[in-house]
């Protein structure tokens, strides 16, 4: 194979190209890794309250999250995304944190619904006023509960955010 021309490359995504016949990709490592990560978000099956039902609907046949490469994993060790679907109580908060700590890097947190975002209706003694008090929340999805489509939209927002990351992979090396 002689000189590789720009035109020979098959462009897959902005900045990422495919070399025909060579089964290789060309592009900045960032983009390739982000592309891979954004295309395979694996959330933990971790329902807290009402929003968990809508999360299940999003995973069921009507909306089918598998289309986005999103597969629910029962174990936090295999997951890289935590969807806070429901009210976070103070008793539950340390458990959520423990689940989060078990997840491998890179990990992302989605706060789904009013309760997980800010406590919502429950401004009481038992409820944490927002998941971002003790977790770094990446995406906030408003709604009480959000439609399953809104959750998918939130996951797409997360994919966009992942695609803009720079050098997060280098932490793991």
């Amino acid at each position, binding site marked *: 194979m002689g000189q590789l021309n720009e035109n020979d490359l098959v462009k897959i995504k902005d900045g990422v190209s495919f070399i025909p016949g060579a089964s290789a990709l060309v592009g900045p490592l960032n983009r390739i890794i982000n592309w891979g990560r954004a295309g395979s978000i694996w959330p933990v099956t971790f329902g807290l309250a009402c929003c968990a039902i809508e999360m299940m609907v999003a995973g069921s*046949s*009507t*909306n*089918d999250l598998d*289309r986005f490469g999103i597969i629910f994993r029962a174990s936090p060790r295999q997951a890289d995304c935590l969807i806070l679907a429901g009210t976070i109580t103070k008793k539950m908060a340390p458990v959520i944190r423990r689940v989060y700590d078990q997840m491998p890097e890179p990990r992302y947190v989605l706060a789904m619904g*009013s309760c997980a*975002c*800010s*406590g*919502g*209706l429950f*401004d009481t003694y038992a409820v944490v006023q*927002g998941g*971002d008090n003790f977790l770094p*929340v*990446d*995406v*906030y*999805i*408003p*709604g*009480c509960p*959000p*439609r399953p*489509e*809104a959750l*998918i*939209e*939130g996951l*797409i*927002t997360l994919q966009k*955010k992942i695609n803009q990351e720079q050098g997060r992979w280098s932490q793991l090396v």
Partner: protein
Amino acid sequence: MKIQYKPKRDLLETIIHLEILQGLALTLKKLFSKPITREYPGEMPPVYPGFRGQHALVRDPVSGTSKCIACLRCSQACPARCIRVKYHIDESNGSRIVDNYEIEALRCVYCGYCVEVCPVNAVTMTDIFEYSSTDRQSLHFDKERLLENWDHFTKSDSYERQSYVNPLWRPRGFPKSRLTASSRESVPKNRKIEKQFTGTKLGIKKNNKEAGGYNNLYPTHGEKNAH
């Protein structure tokens, strides 16, 4: 009513695994039926009038700003207490001028009480539900942002000027005599009022196929708005 209990299964059925074969036949049959999956980002789910989505302040076409008169009924009715209205009183005529109108979308529980109690239909809930954000502050709507939401909503194809307030309920607690014509312009004058559904008259069960004609007789917004 006692229910039938243990299912009976004879020897032959047990040997040939009849019930398992039946189940497999069902799933095989479903392989050829129409998929029910909605391809979401391309295909929108049906959203009906009165859907409780993103909030908006209605922009008055005359004055170009909000219709809100700062009566504070919305913030009193709000169970989550996420609405804050700041106003000052105009010295010349004593009316209230709204300085800022804030809705904390992340605390709101989308019950729709604020829309229901509003006497001038100033605040409304649009059928937009895709507004997740990576930033908390951007979901704390102030007056400008709420008016922008309205502009955004009026541009969307689901918007019908006549029915931005859910046409199916009437605000309660207001005698009709108190309502001026302009204050309720959101309820169109020439909108066809659908006849109330009653079971006996229509006899829905018996002639189900003929009943398909109801939609033509009484056009509803739900049918129109379905994407």
